[in-house]
């Protein structure tokens, strides 16, 4: 009767142990020479085709971990020396410079990178390299009678009350825009600007940049602030209603005449401090700065290439040339945290 008394419970325990062991098989195995580990803030499906080209050319397999930029930074911090990350790829320069400032990236000497990427788009200390440029622009409904705002500061004017569509303050592109304003105008003036901006919101911030374009096209609001590549993407979308929505809006390059230039941001990358596959990481970085990758960034994602030899996509060329606020680039990371707190305080959710 007592025989096998505890057998059933122990059997359960054994089964659990076996199950756990089975799961351990899912351990990452990027230890070979022909692999590298990429921490990417770009969504995997957006970057995978490019990485496949890299693999077919060099034979190096790329393991991708895609997550939010700040999340990747946190991961690098807590993983420390044993982090498997080789390359950090971000969509926002502020995050990349913060990573560098915290010592999470290492310096890379590469004549290829230095020739292909202009100095304004890379770290003087060689820890990060910009790979693509994007501008945060103002769009307006084409049928609008009034003259559109020519400066970011004008977005806060009372004449636009209830007419501004913009996404949440949680989004890093808005945070960088406010960071740039902070760097240029200081806290008091930026705060006043933010309060004016908030009074002009047509609706509580919701959706992504594409939704703001759709809202302007539908007539809910007259103006919106979006990243240039979203507009480019919508103009070339497979969905007909996106294309027609994008055609109903017009783009304005802010802060041009007599101003610092349009707010721009860089998508870029840096080699991780404790990268186990340093050489492979540098190879990928050089590939991303190369002609093929630069063409891919502009043709598929409608970003501006940083390599001077590569021309932007047709859609982008149709928008003409513009003055960009390059001076603000280096300070984005510094002011980002203050920007977020300020946005919280004025109530921009």
């Amino acid at each position: 009767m007592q025989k096998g008394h505890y057998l059933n419970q122990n059997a359960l325990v054994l089964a659990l142990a076996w199950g756990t062991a089975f799961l351990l098989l899912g351990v990452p195995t990027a230890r070979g020479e022909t692999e590298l580990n990429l921490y990417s803030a770009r969504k995997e499906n957006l970057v995978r085709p490019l990485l496949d080209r890299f693999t077919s050319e060099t034979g190096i397999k790329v393991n991708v971990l895609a997550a939010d930029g700040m999340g990747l930074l946190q991961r690098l911090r807590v993983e420390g020396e044993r982090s498997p990350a080789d390359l950090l790829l971000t969509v926002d320069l502020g995050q990349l410079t913060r990573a560098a400032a915290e010592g999470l990236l290492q310096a890379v000497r590469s004549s290829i990178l230095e020739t292909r990427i202009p100095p304004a788009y890379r770290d003087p200390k060689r820890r990060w390299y910009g790979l693509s440029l994007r501008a945060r622009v103002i769009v307006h409904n084409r049928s609008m009678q009034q003259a559109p705002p020519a400066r970011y500061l004008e977005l806060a004017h009372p004449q636009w009350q209830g007419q501004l569509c913009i996404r949440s303050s949680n989004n890093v592109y808005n945070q960088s825009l406010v960071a740039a304003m902070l760097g240029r105008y200081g806290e008091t003036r930026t705060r006043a600007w933010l309060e004016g901006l908030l009074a002009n919101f047509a609706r509580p911030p919701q959706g992504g940049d594409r939704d703001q374009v759709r809202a302007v096209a539908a007539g809910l609001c007259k103006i919106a602030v979006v990243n240039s590549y979203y507009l480019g993407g919508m103009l070339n979308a497979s969905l007909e209603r996106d294309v027609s929505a994008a055609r109903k809006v017009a783009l304005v390059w802010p802060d041009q005449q007599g101003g610092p230039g349009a707010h721009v941001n860089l998508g870029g990358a840096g080699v991780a401090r404790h990268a186990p596959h340093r050489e492979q990481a540098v190879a990928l970085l050089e590939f991303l700065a190369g002609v093929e990758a630069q063409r891919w960034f502009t043709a598929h994602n409608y970003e501006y290439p940083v390599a001077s030899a590569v021309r932007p996509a047709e859609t982008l060329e149709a928008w003409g040339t513009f003055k960009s606020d390059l001076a603000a680039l280096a300070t984005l990371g510094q002011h980002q945290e203050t920007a977020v707190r300020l946005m919280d305080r004025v109530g921009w959710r």
Partner: protein
Amino acid sequence: MIRRVPGGTGRLNIAPLIALVPAVPVLVLLASAILPLADGDTWQHIRETLLLEYLGNSLRLVLMVACGTLILGVLPAWLITFYRFPGRRVLKWLLICPLAIPAYVMAYVYTGLLDVAGPVQEWLGMVLPAYAPRSFYSPLPAAAVVLSLSLFPYVYIFARVGFLQQSADMLEAARILGCGRIGTVFRVVLPLARPAIAAGLLLALMETLADYGVAQHFGLAVLPTGIFRAWEGFGDLQAAVRLAALLLGLAAVLFILERLSRRRARYHQAAAHAVPRVRLRGARAALVFGVCALPAFLGFVVPGITLFSWALVSTAPAGMADALVNSCLLALAAALLALGLALLLLPMPGRARPGIGRQAGLLMVRLGYAVPGTVVAISVLVPVLWLEHTLDAAWTWAGGRTSSLLLAGGLVVLVYAYLVRFMAVAVQAVEAGLARVRPSLGEAGHSLGLSLSAVVWRIHLPLVRGSLLVALLMVFVEVLRELPATLLLRPFNFSTLAVRTYELAGEGQVAEAAWPASAIMCAALVPVLLLGSMLDHAEDARS
């Protein structure tokens, strides 16, 4: 934990200790919330600007969803259990189907439909000449409606079970004693079903408290979004953990309220006759049909059709097959483990009251459900990293080479996080089943000479086999839909359907996102329909 067994040697029972492992992160969380006493910079900022808003919105959301799910869940459950009307059979099934659609998918479907650029407003613009496009919803009510539509099936299922168990004899007795029709409902039927309804409501509200996807989509500032922001945006663990502790506090309050509502009452009934269903015709039947059909329509039919139609007009995104396989395998593994651990941890009926250790452990496990996925991911990562660093230090001390992280990037951590979060579902389902088992059965077995263990395995478990399957199915569906922890802990080159949906919808590629979202819905429909057929059998067995 040494058990005295008649005639047996006392042996250390390690099984419950193993089952408590998922409770460790919650303990770590609570500990780190208390320990650093000085307020960090970020915490001060949050306290000054956002804390009241987080708390206020979370509380109001919970209250609104409680009302929403109670109405949408209890009313149809009552009507379907006690009445017969045309369309009842179909509705019985449709009403549980919203479980197959994650709340964040429902949020983005309805936004796509009702937004300024969506078909509804477009149509209104064509039909009404003076129509100006409006953003007609504000974050809190929108989130409450979407969450209610997504979560009411929990209340519906549990309420149905509660109503099905009612005995005709009880109701007749009530009528004989003078209760009218309505009186019987409010004084007998509902109170008897209260523990079941409360259990279902608790699950729904815990999920509401922990929800990140819907709140983030509507730009609603609640505790889970605040936690995400504190951890990622500010990089401040202390602030994130304190907010998480507040959230757990709210969850504990809900949990205690549910327990109090049950007090010490016993709810198992003697052999009962099923309540005969009243046949309805004509206008009444139509009205009842309408009332039951509305939640099913809004919660399943509309989103389902929309998703399919969006998928049809777009091309399938890359990596779908991989994501599907990954999702299903993960969900299956987590469900099996969760059930096993729940069985180890729960006290079997008829045994002496569980010790303080088990009770505390059970509480920790239940609280895990209220911990948002982001926080679970963080609080799982910390002990695992510590373990790894320690092992690595020992390895290098013994002469080996240091190497990259082993565990932290693998599936073990992810499944562990799922266990922390979802073991409560398995526990709740199995416990509800065990509660219906009369202790006298166990005593009878005992007196016939069966050991305690044999009583459990040969008498109790077969009786609650249904609950075990329910536990498996519910955990499977939950893991299939889980998003934030998967985003944070997944290994390289690993994607699930939920992650693909989030990525695509986040990029504004609403139509492409319908592919993985539809896949989640189809994959989750299988266990959901199985659940429905079990409810069906329970019903047939009674009539």
